[in-house]
């Protein structure tokens, strides 16, 4: 684990707590909670991720996927994306993103570079 000065850890935690109190983030957290409480939506999304991983693994091994399998994947994805609880969570996250970007800009200004490009594991 990376060692981090106590004051930096506290400043980061304070920023996180203040974000949690912001309207768009609160709305997202509520939508996320509603999603977690909906067994049907959770199960549907887990099925999609599981199918995606399975198909990707087979493709990486050079296997050609059948048209039916690809269509089944697209159909499941359509079902997930059109589920009202899932789409509300996704919409809330999209709505929160510009807000988060505004806050991240404040860090970037202090640094002189884009904070978000260095605060994520290398792609």
């Amino acid at each position, binding site marked *: *684990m*990376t060692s*981090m*000065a106590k*004051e*930096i*850890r506290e*400043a*980061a*935690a*304070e*920023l*996180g*707590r*203040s*974000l*949690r*109190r*912001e*309207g*768009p*983030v609160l709305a*997202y*957290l509520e939508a*996320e909670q509603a999603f977690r409480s909906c067994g049907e939506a959770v199960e549907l999304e887990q099925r999609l991720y599981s199918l995606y991983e399975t198909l990707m693994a087979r493709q990486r091994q050079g296997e050609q996927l059948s048209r039916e399998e690809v269509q089944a994947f697209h159909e499941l994805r359509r079902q997930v994306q059109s589920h009202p609880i899932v789409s509300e969570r996704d919409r809330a*996250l*999209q*709505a*929160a*993103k*510009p*807000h*988060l*970007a*505004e*806050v*991240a800009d*404040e*860090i*970037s*200004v*202090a*640094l*002189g570079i884009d*904070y*978000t*490009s*260095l*605060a*994520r*594991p*290398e792609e």
Partner: protein
Amino acid sequence: MDVQASSQPAVAVPAQEARKAAQALGRLLAATPQYQAFLEALRALDADLDVQRLGVEMRSHQIPLQWGQDADGQHAAALERLQQELEAVPVVQRYRQAEAAVRQLFVAVDAVISQEAGVAFAVNARRSGCSCGQ
């Protein structure tokens, strides 16, 4: 006359509290040895003539590749060779090390922010060139 507000969704302005907290964190991060070392490595990189020469040569091969003009693969091969040459330059190696160190710190900091906020911060705060705001 029926005057309606713009149909554009309003982007909520962050509260002063979040802005101030972000500014304070930014100042602390800017003062860390990791970040200072990264800036120094970046300046050295920008000033290195070998790096600049390699950059110019690499661009001369990237352009034909972008235009799909590399039927015999010569540009791709040259680009790979130049990339290897670039990575072997000491100032580039020092930059990579400094970048890795500052990234490790920032990723850890971001994990703390995200944990407290309840939402992954940097990955969702990233601006893209897309006007859709995604």
